[in-house]
């Protein structure tokens, strides 16, 4: 159903390091959870579409007026970043 190599691939997609020692217990848990949620295959859903339902609202509009882009002081938000340079958040090289 889900293989060990799937776990490595999913960890990569989700951007989470999963150390070797944690792969086996995670694999075991996921197999059991997927077996449980697999019960849904028994339900006949032939006639239904999968659109998400919510509150029935659509096209929620806001007035086309100038307002602050952020609820907070930009300096306060920048201070929360681990590293910044002036008004920019500094990150490690994207291309390497």
């Amino acid at each position, binding site marked *: 159903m889900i293989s060990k190599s799937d776990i490595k691939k999913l960890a990569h997609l989700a951007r989470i390091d999963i150390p070797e020692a944690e792969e086996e217990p995670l694999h075991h848990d996921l197999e059991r959870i997927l077996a449980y949620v697999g019960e*849904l295959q028994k339900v006949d859903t032939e006639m239904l579409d999968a659109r998400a339902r919510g509150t029935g609202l659509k096209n929620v509009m806001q007035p086309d007026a100038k307002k602050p882009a952020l609820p907070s002081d930009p300096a306060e938000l920048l201070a929360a970043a681990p590293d910044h340079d002036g008004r920019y958040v500094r990150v490690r090289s994207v291309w390497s």
Partner: protein
Amino acid sequence: MELENLTIAEAHKLLASRAISARELVAQTCKTIREKDPAIHGYLEVYENEALADASRIDKKIAEGESLGTLAGIPLAIKDNILVRGNMASAASRMLAAYTAAYDATVIQRLRAAGAIFVGRTNMDEFAMGSSTENSAFGPTKNPHDTSRVPGGSSGGSAAAVAAHECVGALGSDTGGSIRQPASFCGVVGLKPTYGSVSRSGLIAMASSLDQIGPITKTVEDSEILFDAIRGVDPLDSTTVDRAYLKDPKPMEHMVIGIPKEYFVGGLDPQVKEKVQDALRTLQGLGVKTKEVSLPHAEYALATYYIIMPAEVSANLARFDGIRYGLSKDAEKLFEVYAGTRHAGFGAEVRRRIILGTYVLSAGYYDAYYAKAQKVRALIKQDFDTAFETVDAIISPTAPTPAFKLGEKTSDPLAMYLEDIYTVTANLAGIPAISIPCGLSHDNLPIGFQLMAREFDEGTLFAIGKAYEQSAKK
């Protein structure tokens, strides 16, 4: 004057008549916290000095003859995933252990405007993922009724703080039962409002099609007071709906309560079953009619939930990447910063749900899992629509058992997930649901029953709940 056990409504009367001051009330609350919380650990942080200063400001307004609302001067506890500007908000995660909120959640702005006083932030399962508050990165909360047992979760800190009178009321959040199940375990009232009735701006998101903020209180009357203060449309959460609910919808003798035949079967603790049936008899004594209803897809609700919720979790928690805020593990390459930060910052349950959510959304599996679950969700909603054609409310247990022992379910995620079996349906269907205490087990552990109603019909829950409480008091 006995200040310790006051409800919001009682405290308001005493404050309004100047029999007590807000400062006295806050000081008493902080004293109770100092005495009791070391054994319970409901709070992650208490703001005693700020709360006393806020109380003095309220007292000054009262002395100046200003007429104040019901919540003015009332000490409240706030779950640690709701932002209060200038205070820490960690969601009980290492990822946000040092994070300071840069703005107020909308519910906080509204409570602040009403004069409520925030005494502290409460413990929870990390990012609201769990049913016992044992998944907190800062240690578990204990049940005030028996400290060898869990308070439920994920809003376990808020429920325990209310039950132990370490605050007069509290806010929690509920994605699959996280307000109602701990309320049931701790013997207090917990409301999950209709989806779209309370703004989530400033709530650290878990699963956005399911999350709602709601009150945890000592009585149904208090639940209504807090709900009235936080509800209503907000431009910062575009899912909020401008729709008031009907107060005092109809007299008890015209109410019909549905009993879902699927809900009183396997896995339900006999003591819970007995107490919920006692509650039903009490309601019948008030003139309420009952009727058997069928929710044929209820048995698939938990499986549906454990696909949709992790899918949304995997998307929402992608923002925690060590770049803009929160924990950051430095490394040579950007990818290593992401992956290392997310391994170090997230606990095992959070990682498990992110990986599961990534799986059910990934190419080749999407239709079998996520699309299928969305369709079953529509069927679950349809079941409720059909049932509510003939009944005003539906009764069920809140949780299948009373509070369990610490450590009892931590090694088995599926056993923990089954705690939510009666509560997830309301989140999937978007309808309001309340848990109300209905007695004690042989071991003196609280048991709660759940009432569910139509969308935006909190009024029916409050009306039935208040009538039940008055009758049960006699």
